[in-house]
């Protein structure tokens, strides 16, 4: 009877030990599984936010809201510069379009030397004032 009790205790200890050894492994394995599932689902989500097919391009332009940066992107052509003003700096563009073509070119030349929107805006106001 005593031997049977001893055997039972040994068996219990062995099972508990085994469980304790396996538990962290199970947890880590479960966490890994979750991360794997997340990555798979992220891949499956497919289309990256904001990317659109060519057919949707015009629609995209309507719903796009680029943030007004403190600087206008450098190296723009004259047309691109005007487009940037129109789409991203409405306040400055409102004044800019009041300038005659010749002076608009002047603003563009100014931008080529200093592309900070604050400076460009000051130049527009200066030209408007001096007109």
């Amino acid at each position, binding site marked *: 009877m005593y031997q049977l009790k001893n055997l039972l205790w040994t068996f219990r200890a062995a099972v508990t030990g085994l469980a304790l050894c396996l538990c962290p492994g199970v947890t880590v394995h479960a966490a890994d599984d979750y*991360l794997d599932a997340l990555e798979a689902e992220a891949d499956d989500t497919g289309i990256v936010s904001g990317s659109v097919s060519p057919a949707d391009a015009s629609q995209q332009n309507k719903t796009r809201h680029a943030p007004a940066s403190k600087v206008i992107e450098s190296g723009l052509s004259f047309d691109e510069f005007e487009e940037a003003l129109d789409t991203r700096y409405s306040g400055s563009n409102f004044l800019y379009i009041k300038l005659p073509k010749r002076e608009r070119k002047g603003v563009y030349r100014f931008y080529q030397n200093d592309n900070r929107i604050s400076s460009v805006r000051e130049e527009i106001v200066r030209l408007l004032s001096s007109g």
Partner: protein
Amino acid sequence: MKRFITKICAVALFASAGFLLTANAVALDVKLTDYLAYLEVDHDGEQVRIQRIQDTSNVLNDGFSKTSRKCPPFCIQPMKVAPGVATVGEAEIFRFMERELADGDGMIVDARTVSWYKKGTIPGSVNIPFTEFVGEIEAPETIKALEQLGGVQRDEVSWVARSFEKLMAALGLFNAGQKTDAWDFSDAKQVVFWCNGPWCGQSPRAIDGLLSHGYPPEKVYYYRGGMQMWKVLGLTVVMPESAEAVAMK
């Protein structure tokens, strides 16, 4: 005199431009709420305008239009994620952005893994993946995450001082409940956690981990709608790499 008049005209033009811009904002057909047409938040040093897609025929056509994902692991989350943690919706997020976030007293945490974050995030959010919160309290990434939220590591506290703090905490005095043996969260920020939506467990896991480290639950908010609802409502999303704001389809 002529110069003076032209300067006056320039000022008037500026003022009218401002008026027109305001009028334009008010004229949005699809506003955020009945009192708010749009709002601007700082995202990585740039002001980003949050507004809704104005095309009323627009529908989602990307992964967020999907209805079903395997559960587990993508199971529907309860409305109440943890005791003491308030669940918030979009209107509360807008108010949070205008107040706590703007004042520097609050943070919005995108708790998703980087691969999700790269697909676009809510303007004003900071990406701290949930994995940073669920580790041991001594883990470097956990320490970094807690410090980001305004937690301060404490030097060794004497048994007497700690016992006194516990007593004060029980009485609800001196913010003692916001201190643990290792951390002081008295000046920690109000934090909104979000992930992919009601089917996403990443922000609940982050909240669970954060609370287990002693962060006060009254400073934690759960935006259950997450990216799913943000997109359904046509709200502006920022692409992290380019910091380019795009109101997505």
